[in-house]
């Protein structure tokens, strides 16, 4: 009888350990797991937190190749394997963001991220960074008023340093990939609804 009691203690302790292990990050990851792997679903295969996309792919930020710097002080690097590329941002020694995409997602133009400094004391900076499809040597950022600006592709990546569009002012709507001979290699939209670059604080 007493031995049964001890076994109960053991089972109880095991159950407690299992519940504790499943709580928090583990439960969050499990709740987000899915069968079709988009960027969010791929990330959800590991526990949430910084460098989540990298961890889900098995890449390491310390192996990133430095590419360029941004006006907001962040540096951008690239790390990749055969199927996936990740554009990483760092502020000094601190991790500051990641954009990971498969080669097919890059070809679709779904490897662009936009960072907006919308706080009142800041410089109102907007940084558009991304991965360009194979064959693109230049990227043209198209604005809602039809104007555009261009930047070159560096190791498959590009950046546009700018400021957040003022209310009712023209705003970026998409990019056009330009090949080395100057011809268009396709277009892609930005992951923003209209001019909602900054969001409200209420």
């Amino acid at each position, binding site marked *: 009888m007493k*031995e049964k009691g001890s076994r109960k203690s053991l089972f109880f302790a*095991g159950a407690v350990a299992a519940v504790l292990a499943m709580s928090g990050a583990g439960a969050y990851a499990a709740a987000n797991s899915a069968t079709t792997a988009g960027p*969010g679903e791929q990330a959800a295969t590991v526990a949430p937190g910084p460098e989540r996309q990298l961890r889900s792919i098995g890449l390491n930020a310390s192996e990133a190749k430095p590419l360029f710097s941004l006006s907001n002080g962040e540096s951008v690097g690239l790390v990749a394997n055969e199927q996936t590329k990740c554009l990483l941002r760092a502020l000094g020694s601190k991790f500051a963001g990641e954009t990971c995409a498969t080669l097919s997602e890059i070809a679709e133009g779904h490897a662009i991220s936009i960072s*907006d400094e*919308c706080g009142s004391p800041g410089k109102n900076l907007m940084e558009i960074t991304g991965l360009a499809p194979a064959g693109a040597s230049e990227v043209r950022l198209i604005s809602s008023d039809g104007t555009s600006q261009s930047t070159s592709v560096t190791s498959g990546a590009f950046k546009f340093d700018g400021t957040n569009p003022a209310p009712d002012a023209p705003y970026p709507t998409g990019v056009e990939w330009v090949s080395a001979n100057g011809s268009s290699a396709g277009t892609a939209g930005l992951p923003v609804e209209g001019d*909602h670059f900054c969001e409200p604080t209420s």
Partner: protein
Amino acid sequence: MSKLLRKRRLTGLAGSLVMASVLALATASAASAFSEGYGGYEICGSNCYVQSGGSHTFYFNEGSARGEPYLACQLFNTSHANQVTHGYGYCDVFYYGGEYVTARVYDQSGTSHVVSGYAET
């Protein structure tokens, strides 16, 4: 005698498991003082959002959804912090100002999605 030893072994093992769990939790809390998963339900795609339960000294916020909808991650307060990052199906935003901020994830895709957020201090 052997029954007594076996009982002690089982009791000791049970204690070790509980201790290991406590140590694991203590280590986790030392690595990250506070974290919060939020959302996880369907919201509209016209800039609807999920939001953290309160404000903390969050430095990291991420959002995710199935597929590749336009998502925007935000860390903000009513004084002057307001950082926003946009991405496809996943977004992350960092704020190293050390202030109390609220975390949000917006769906800007135009269609409804189940959107989840996670923030930590």
